């Protein structure tokens, strides 16, 4: 991307930038007070067009030449033109992270973006899934994504400009690789080269033909390379299985063992060095972006949560900017469906609230005479909440009441900062949090007493009480409720959130924290397609069903799992892929097209074993008449592309049995569905 560089342009942006220096500095201070530990962030002021360009390039300034960036740019421009789509923030996962602020944003928007970005940057730095790409080392040398992408851009551009290489060929090759973009092993630490167990020395499938080409005389062949010798060699096909275990990283497998199909020669030949190089680059980028795809809900929710804490609770938006901000926030969260912002943010609040509730309940259950059986009856939750309210001095930190702060416990107050505030070095009016510690802030923003969460504590059900109370030791520690509440750790919720953001990804996050309550409150339901009516119908509003469907959409990028099962299939170096069937069949049209692409990367015939659901026409007719859903039958199929045509043949169940999972079921159709 070319950043425009006229002087007027630069001065204008500089002016905006200098207005933002303080918010940027203080947002970082606040973020750190709150316990966030972000990568350093470099902020850039960009105009509308530059923003569109950045969006098209996935948040970076330079990418390899490819038509799809153009497509995204085109779409982005048209959206802006017709839909008034306004891009708010871009931050990329890098150390230092780079964030882009659009110059037309209001100051309130800019502050919101900055606080949001700080939280993203923390997530990039601390979430373990991001660590997979960097081998857990998040130092500058390790990440440097912008530099990597820039390097790729330049390398590919050079290949494209190389007179020896056809530009269109490079682009096509990239397309082929991109078809397999999600066929990587995103749960593994990224390594540039995958060590797969191949046959020790690859034996050419048609060694005999090669020998023929050498034009040796029959005598010599008879002497040295006799049939016996050939058979012996071709029989020793390395390990029995190649790969030993099914290999999910299809991209790396074809990189290590693939060839390309040479039209002229009519056979597979070694890939050109540039082809392997491009494959490597595409694979590296796929791994780099994988973590982002795996943690979208968590990451957006995390950023929205802390943005809201900073902007609203800590009043990082000035009073005059606040309405503007609240408006913006409402729009972002309200944009329909299951948007990752609102879903993520609600789940984080749920993590916080349940942890805080558990902490309170564990204290209460240790009061003499209170057990999980009677807690709900003997404890006055309103009174408990009253006690849990932060002290006034803490809730409303104010320069005028410095003396009140002095009276607060040491663990909440940053004494040194308080001194400096007294000397007028710190403006507590604007930045009250500067006088507080992490614990103090946790106390100040304690979730259970917030207006929107006040009912949370009392909504605890008997099951949960029992789960917490049943095996509690030391259960007569406190003489009274008041005494118990004094020991409550107010930072428990935040501490837990920090743990969760380190180890979870969207799948585990949703699995663990998506609750019945959340699903019901938001009117979520599942829908399924009916063969009888040819339409989608509502299938279930049960929480476990909704969760099941959602998990399907998040597991493995929402894509079916495909692995290499044999790199020497048919004993002819053909590729055999297996679709690990979880009850949801493949889009066969897409699968066929994808096989054609893989052929280009393998150079020899490619095969895919899968399981499909078939419904008899007659059964559909019968089902239609009876308002029922026909029962499909699962059958094994082998789809094959040999370079000229795609064939699909039925195979026996034995051949696909190993692909079928019997412990998952994503079907949410009820028994008497359409009755």
């Amino acid at each position, binding site marked *: 991307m070319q950043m425009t560089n006229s002087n007027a342009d630069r001065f204008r942006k500089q002016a905006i930038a200098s207005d933002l220096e303080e918010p940027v500095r203080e947002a970082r201070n606040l973020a750190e007070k709150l316990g966030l530990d972000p990568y350093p962030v470099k902020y850039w002021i960009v105009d509308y067009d530059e923003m569109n360009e950045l969006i098209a390039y996935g948040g970076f300034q330079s990418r390899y030449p490819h038509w799809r960036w*153009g497509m995204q740019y085109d779409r982005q421009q048209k959206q802006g033109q017709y839909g008034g789509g306004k891009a708010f923030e871009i931050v990329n996962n890098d150390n230092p992270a780079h964030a882009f602020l659009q110059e037309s944003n209001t100051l309130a928007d800019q502050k919101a973006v900055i606080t949001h970005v700080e939280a993203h940057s923390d997530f990039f730095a601390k979430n373990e899934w991001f660590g997979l790409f960097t081998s857990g080392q998040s130092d500058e040398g390790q990440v440097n994504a912008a530099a990597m992408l820039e390097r790729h851009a330049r390398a590919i551009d050079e290949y494209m400009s190389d007179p020896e290489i056809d530009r269109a060929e490079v682009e096509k090759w990239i397309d082929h690789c991109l078809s397999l973009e999600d066929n990587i092993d995103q749960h593994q630490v990224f390594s540039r080269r995958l060590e797969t167990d191949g046959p020790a020395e690859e034996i050419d499938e048609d060694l005999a033909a090669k020998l023929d080409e050498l034009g040796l005389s029959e005598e010599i062949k008879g002497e040295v390379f006799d049939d016996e010798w050939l058979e012996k060699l071709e029989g020793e096909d390395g390990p029995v299985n190649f790969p030993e275990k099914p290999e999910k990283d299809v991209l790396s497998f074809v990189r290590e063992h693939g060839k390309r199909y040479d039209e002229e020669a009519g056979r597979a030949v070694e890939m050109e060095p540039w082809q392997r190089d491009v494959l490597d680059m595409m694979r590296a980028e796929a791994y780099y972006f994988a973590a982002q795809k795996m943690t979208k809900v968590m990451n957006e929710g995390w950023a929205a949560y802390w943005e809201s804490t900073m902007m609203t609770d800590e009043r990082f938006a000035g009073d005059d900017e606040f309405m503007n901000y609240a408006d913006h926030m409402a729009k972002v969260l309200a944009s329909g469906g299951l948007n990752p912002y609102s879903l993520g943010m609600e789940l984080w609040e749920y993590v916080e609230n349940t942890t805080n509730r558990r902490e309170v309940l564990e204290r209460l259950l240790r009061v003499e005479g209170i057990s999980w059986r009677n807690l709900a009856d003997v404890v006055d939750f309103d009174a408990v909440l009253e006690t849990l309210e932060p002290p006034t001095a803490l809730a409303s930190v104010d320069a005028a009441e410095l003396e009140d702060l002095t009276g607060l416990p040491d663990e909440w107050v940053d004494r040194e900062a308080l001194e400096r505030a007294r000397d007028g070095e710190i403006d507590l009016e604007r930045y009250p949090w500067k006088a507080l510690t992490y614990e103090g802030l946790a106390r100040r923003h304690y979730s259970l007493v917030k207006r929107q969460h006040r009912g949370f504590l009392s909504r605890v059900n008997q099951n949960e009480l029992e789960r917490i109370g049943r095996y509690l030791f030391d259960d007569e520690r406190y003489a009274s409720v008041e005494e118990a509440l004094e020991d409550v750790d107010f930072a428990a919720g935040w501490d837990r959130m920090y743990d969760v953001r380190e180890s979870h990804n969207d799948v585990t996050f949703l699995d663990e924290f998506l609750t019945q309550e959340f699903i019901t409150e938001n009117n979520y339901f599942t829908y399924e397609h009916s063969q009888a009516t040819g*339409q989608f119908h509502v299938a279930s509003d049960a929480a476990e069903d909704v969760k099941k469907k959602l998990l399907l959409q998040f597991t493995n990028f929402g894509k079916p799992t495909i692995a290499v099962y044999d790199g020497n299939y048919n004993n002819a170096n053909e590729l055999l892929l297996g679709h690990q069937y979880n009850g949801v069949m493949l*889009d066969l049209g897409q699968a066929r097209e*994808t096989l054609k692409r893989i052929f280009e990367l393998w150079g020899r015939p490619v095969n895919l074993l899968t399981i499909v659901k078939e419904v008899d026409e007659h059964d559909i007719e019968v089902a239609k008449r009876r308002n029922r859903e026909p029962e499909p039958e699962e059958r094994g199929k082998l789809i094959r592309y040999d370079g000229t045509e795609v064939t699909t043949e039925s195979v026996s169940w034995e051949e696909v049995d190993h692909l079928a999972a019997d412990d998952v079921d994503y079907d949410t159709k009820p028994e008497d569905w359409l009755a």
Partner: protein
Amino acid sequence: MGLRDDLERFREVGEQRREDLADFIKYGDLGGGRPDQIQIPVKIVSLPEFEYDRRDQGGVGQGDGGTPDVGQPVGQPQPQPGDGDDGDGDEPGEEGGDHEYYEMDPEEFAQELDEELGLDLEPKGKKVVEEKEGPFTDLTRTGPDSTLDFERMFKEGLKRKLAMDFDEEFLREVCKVEGFGPRDVFEWARGESIPVSMAWIEDAYDDVPSEERGAWASIEELEANVERQSVQQKIRREGIKHVPFRREDERYRHPEIIEEKEKNVVVVNIRDVSGSMREKKRELVERTFTPLDWYLTGKYDNAEFVYIAHDAEAWAVEREEFFGIRSGGGTKISSAYELAQELLEEYPWSDWNRYVFAAGDSENSSNDTEERVIPLMEAIPANLHAYVETQPSGNAINATHAEELERHFGRDAEDVAVAYVNGADDVTDAIYDILSTEGDADD
């Protein structure tokens, strides 16, 4: 390298993969997109990937103020959170790949159609929308000081100087030629077209010290010994000491007035919506009219559309309804032209290009064509009147409107076109017939 290139590559890729324009007009889904934007389905711009069968996958939806009942149909699946960056999922395509759309704007469409059908319609600018000040290129002899064209004055002064200046040194030498009096010097100078006055020569002559008089035996000797210097050389050597500014060289600039003519077009679409216009006929009208609208929108700066539906009576409608209306009733085509005439008053012929397109199955009430429609068509000035007959099943007995028009106006009329569309295959030919008819009659 860079986004511009990527965008261009996308256009190229989209171009290669998009449906052929003529096929799109004949068989494609014309309903997609906004009127100012034409969406042509592109095959497989998104790359194929292993994906779940969309139907078998099902999905999660969110009820609006309550959870819908189990079994209730939900229409098309909502976008799912996992879908993320890779565009919208569509129906599982049999041969794979989502249908992306290759979007054209009307200008692009018009250009492509020109190429595809070999058209070359040049829209005429009519209405003067703006008289704006052009560059300050016109000059007057008076004006405010700030608009004084100093550069011009300087140049004129310089020219004057060049014209008036002469090689004074040489002339002084000429005064020293043996036997030359002032008059001789003057005569010689005149012969050489040197712009010098008699007075100057007399002064110079007097200034020659007596011992130098007759220093040169002849002009020839002088010329052989002293180099003459052209004015240009002189200025180069000595610089311009003085440029004479004269009042008569003063010019004041003022802006040129440019008439900006807007290429305005109003297109009247008339459609028979009577009972005999069944679905098939209706669709053929849409297929013919829609590309015509797009084309003209693309060709003109400003395109306005008037939609008239008629059976025995006519009424104006909005575009959204236009192709969908069905009514009972008989047919009286003249009713539509009467309404068109009335509505066109808002678009004076002096300012607007006008196209009046009518379509139907050629059925009309008896004598209406001859007695009412033809006179009205002649009375409504327009770049082009066209009638599109849509008769999927060949000719009906009473359907003679098109024929009558053709008989009256002749096949080669410059501003009347009659086209027959019996099936989708005829659509592009009809469009060609119509758009290639417009003459230059009113230029």
